[in-house]
C-alpha cells in the first residue's frame, strides 16, 4: 500500500518535470524560429553603408557615455581609449570613480592630464555626494567625476545627473566597443523618430581575442573550457532569446554592459535603483511600467549586431559568485514589480514577458536542479525509475545541448563573427557536452543564489579582473 503511494508521488513528480521541460522546449523553439527569420533577412547586408546617410542625424543626437569604475585600474585606460576612437559625431565620456581603493583615479588623471573644474551638477536623482569633477586638458569631451562609494547604480546616477546630452549609454569599465557600435544602436532610435527610447546591443566575450589599445585586432577563441561554455551561453541568450522578445516589444533586459537609453525617460522613471544587484534589468522593467501607466507608445529594442566585447570570469569561484548574483538580481526585479504579473493593465508585458521570466528564467534552474537530483536518485532506486531517469536525461539534452548547438550554428549561419572553421567546430562540440557538466553546475549556482536570498545573506563579493587588453 505504502509502496504504491510512493510510486505515485514519484511518477507525478517526474511527469511534472517532464511537462515543464516540454513546455519550455516549445517556447524556445518558437523564439528560435523568430530569430532565425530575422537574422537571415540581413545576412550579408553591407552594414556600414547603411549608416553613412545618418551622419547628420547622429550629429543632432549626442550621447553621453557613462563609465562607472570601481577598482578598475587594470582596464580603465584601455576602455577609455577604445571609447575615444568610437565612430560617432558628438559624444562625451564621463568616467565615474566610485570611491575606488586602487589607482583608478590617479591613472586617469595622469594619462589624460585631467584638471579640476568647478561645475554645478543638477541633482535630478538623489545620489551620494560628488567629491571633485575633472576635465581632460587634451580632450574637452572627457570628464572624470570622483564620488563617495555607493555602488554601481549610484555611480550611474551621478553620471546621469552630470551628463549634458539627451541620450546616455552605460558601459562597464572593462569592455571594448566595436568602432561602429554607437551608430548601430542609435539607428533604431532615429529611424523610429524617437519612438524607440532604449536600445541594447549584443555582448560578446573578449577572453581569447587579441586586443590592443582598446581595439579588437583578431577575434579568437579561448582555450579555457569554462570560457567557451560562456561564449555559447551568451550566443544563445543574445541571438535566440533577445531577438525573439525584441520583435514584440517584450524585452525586459538590456545588458548593463552595453545599452543606450533616453535620458528623459530614465530620469522620469527615477534613475537606477541602488539597493538591488540587478539594476540594469530593474530599470528596463520600471521604464516599461512607466510607459504602460502613461499609455505612451514607446519601444525598447535589441539590435543583434552592434558588438561590445567584455571580459568574463575564467575560474569557478568567480563565475559561481556572478551566477548567484545574477539570479538574485533577477528575483529582486521580478519581486519588486510582481504586481505586473498577469495584470491586464500592462498588456503583453504582464501576460508574456513576466510569466516567461518567472517560469523559465527564475524557476527554471530550481526545477532543473530538482530534476538532476531526481535522476541521480532514480539510478540508485533502479527498476522502473531508470526509465524515468532516461526520459528526463533526453529531455534535458533537448533543452540544454541541442538549443545551444542550434545557437552556435545560427551565429555561423547569419553573423559569422568567428574567422576560422575550427572555431565553429570547437564551439559546436563543446555545446554538445553542455548537459553533462556546465548546465548542472550553473543551475546549482543559481539555486545557491536563491538559497542565499532565503537565509538573508547579502554579500556578493567583488570581481577581480585581470584585464584583457595588452
Amino acid at each position, binding site marked *: 500500500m505504502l509502496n504504491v503511494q510512493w510510486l505515485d508521488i514519484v511518477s507525478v513528480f517526474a511527469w511534472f518535470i517532464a511537462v515543464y521541460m516540454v513546455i519550455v522546449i516549445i517556447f524556445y523553439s518558437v523564439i528560435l524560429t523568430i530569430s532565425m527569420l530575422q537574422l537571415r*533577412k540581413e545576412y550579408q547586408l553591407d552594414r556600414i553603408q547603411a549608416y553613412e546617410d545618418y551622419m547628420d542625424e547622429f550629429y543632432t543626437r549626442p550621447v553621453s557615455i557613462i563609465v562607472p569604475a570601481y577598482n578598475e585600474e587594470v582596464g580603465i585606460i584601455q576602455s577609455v581609449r577604445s571609447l575615444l576612437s568610437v565612430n560617432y559625431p558628438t559624444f562625451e565620456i564621463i568616467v565615474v570613480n566610485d570611491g575606488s581603493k586602487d589607482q583608478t583615479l590617479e591613472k586617469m588623471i595622469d594619462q589624460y592630464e585631467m584638471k579640476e573644474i568647478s561645475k*554645478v551638477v543638477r541633482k535630478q536623482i538623489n545620489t551620494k555626494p560628488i567629491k571633485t569633477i575633472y576635465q581632460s586638458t587634451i580632450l574637452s569631451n572627457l570628464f572624470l567625476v570622483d564620488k563617495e562609494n555607493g555602488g554601481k547604480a549610484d555611480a550611474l546616477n551621478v553620471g546621469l545627473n552630470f551628463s549634458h546630452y539627451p541620450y546616455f549609454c552605460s558601459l562597464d569599465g572593462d569592455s571594448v566597443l566595436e568602432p561602429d557600435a554607437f551608430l548601430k544602436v542609435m539607428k533604431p532610435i532615429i529611424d523610429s523618430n524617437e519612438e524607440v527610447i532604449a536600445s541594447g546591443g549584443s555582448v560578446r566575450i573578449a577572453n581569447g581575442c587579441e586586443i590592443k589599445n582598446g581595439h579588437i585586432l583578431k577575434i579568437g577563441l579561448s582555450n579555457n573550457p569554462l570560457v567557451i561554455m560562456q561564449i555559447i551561453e551568451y550566443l544563445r541568450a543574445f541571438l535566440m532569446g533577445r531577438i525573439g522578445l525584441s520583435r514584440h516589444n517584450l524585452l525586459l533586459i538590456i545588458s548593463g554592459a552595453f545599452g543606450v537609453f533616453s535620458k528623459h525617460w530614465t530620469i522620469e522613471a527615477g534613475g537606477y535603483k541602488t539597493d538591488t544587484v540587478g539594476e540594469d534589468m530593474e530599470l528596463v522593467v520600471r521604464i516599461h511600467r512607466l510607459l504602460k501607466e502613461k499609455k505612451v507608445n514607446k519601444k525598447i529594442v535589441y539590435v543583434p549586431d552592434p558588438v561590445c566585447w567584455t571580459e568574463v570570469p575564467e575560474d569557478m569561484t568567480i563565475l559561481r559568485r556572478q551566477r548567484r548574483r545574477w539570479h538574485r538580481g533577477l528575483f529582486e526585479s521580478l519581486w519588486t514589480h510582481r504586481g505586473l504579473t498577469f495584470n491586464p493593465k500592462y498588456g503583453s508585458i504582464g501576460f508574456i514577458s513576466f510569466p516567461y521570466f518567472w517560469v523559465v528564467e527564475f524557476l527554471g534552474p530550481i526545477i532543473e536542479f530538482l530534476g538532476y537530483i531526481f535522476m541521480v536518485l532514480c539510478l540508485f532506486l533502479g527498476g522502473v525509475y531508470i526509465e524515468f531517469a532516461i526520459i528526463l536525461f533526453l529531455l534535458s539534452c533537448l533543452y540544454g545541448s*541541442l538549443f545551444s548547438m542550434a545557437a552556435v550554428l545560427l551565429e555561423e549561419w547569419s553573423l559569422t563573427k568567428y574567422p576560422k572553421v575550427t572555431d565553429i567546430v570547437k564551439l559546436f562540440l563543446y555545446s554538445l557536452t553542455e548537459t553533462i557538466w556546465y548546465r548542472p553546475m550553473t543551475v546549482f549556482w543559481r539555486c545557491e543564489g536563491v538559497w542565499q536570498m532565503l537565509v538573508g545573506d547579502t554579500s556578493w563579493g567583488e570581481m577581480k579582473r585581470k584585464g584583457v587588453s595588452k
Partner: protein
Amino acid sequence: MINQDILFLSILTLSLMCLLFLLLLYLTIRKAKEIKKRREIVSYKSKINAQIFSVIAEGERYRGIGCETAVKQKAMEELLSRYVKILEGEEEKKRLSDLASDCLQGYYRKRLKSKKWSHRMNALYHIEDFHMIKLLDEVVILSKKKNLTHQEFIHVLRILATFQYNGLKELLHYHDLSEYEYRSILMRLNHDLFDQFVLSFHKSTPPLQFAILDVISLKKALEYRFFTENIFRSYKSEIRLRALKALAEIGYVSNIEPYFQLLYSSSWQERMVAAKLIGSIKEEKGIPRLIELLHDQIWWVRQQAGQSISQFPNGKAILQSVLETSKDTFARDMAWDWLHKGV
C-alpha cells in the same frame, strides 16, 4: 508506455542531433569556401589595384580587367567602394562611375531582381555610391513593384533624388514617410526639383513641411529667406519654430525688431532659437537680453545664450564678466563652459 516514450524521445533527440551535425557539415564547408573565396578576392584586388587607380586618377584606358566571375566582381566592387570614399574631383568621380557601369552594370541589374532582400539592398547602396545613372530605368521599375519593403522603397527614392529624377514628386505623393526620410531625400535634390516642393509647401503634410524647412536650414539656403520669413509669420507652433531655426542658420532677416520679443517668449524652445538667431546675425542690441538668458531655468536656453554671446567679437569679455560678477551658479557655470570650449 514509458518505454514508448523513451523510444520516441531517443529518436527525436538523435534525429535532431543528426540534423544539427548535417547543418554543421554544411556550414563548415560553406565557411571553408568563403575563406578561399576571400583569399582569391584579396589577391585579385592587389593585382588590379594599381591599374584601377591609374584609370580613375589619370584617365588611362583600361585593358584586361575582367569582371566575368563573381570573385572579380566582388573585388572590383570593394576597390571602387574604397576609392569612392576618398575621391574629390569631378573628373575622377565621373571616371569611376563609368568604370563601374562598364564592369558591374549587368551584375547589379541581376542583383536588383534577386529574391534575397540583402542582395537587393546592397545593390541599391552601390548604385547610389557609384552614381550609376545608366541603371535609372531599372530603379524606377523597382519603385513600382508591389511587394517592396519600406527600407528598399526609401532607398530607391534616395537614388532617384540623387539622379534628379523628374517623377519623384509624384512618387512621393502616395506615400507617408517620416520626417527624417523626407529630409534625406530632399537633401539630395538640386535647386529646380527642390523648388517644386517649396511651391507646394502649403499643401504638404507636416512631416514634409518640417523636412523642407530643415533642408533650408541645413543648406543655409539664402535664396529661400523670404519664403522662410513668410512661413514664420503665417504658421504656428512647431512649424513656426522650425522656420525660425532655419532663419537662424541662414543668418539673415529683413527686419530684426519683431524677433526681439521672442527672447521673452513663454516657450523655452522659442527663447532658445531666438537666442541662436541673435547670435548668428550678431545683433548687438540683443546682448543684454542674452546675458539675462544665461540665467534662464532651462539648460538648453542657457547653453544657447552662452554660445550666442561667444559669437560676438567681445563675447569672451562679456562671459568673463558674468563669470566674475554673477551670483547665479548656473549662469557662472555656463559662462565658464563657453570660455573653456575647445581646450
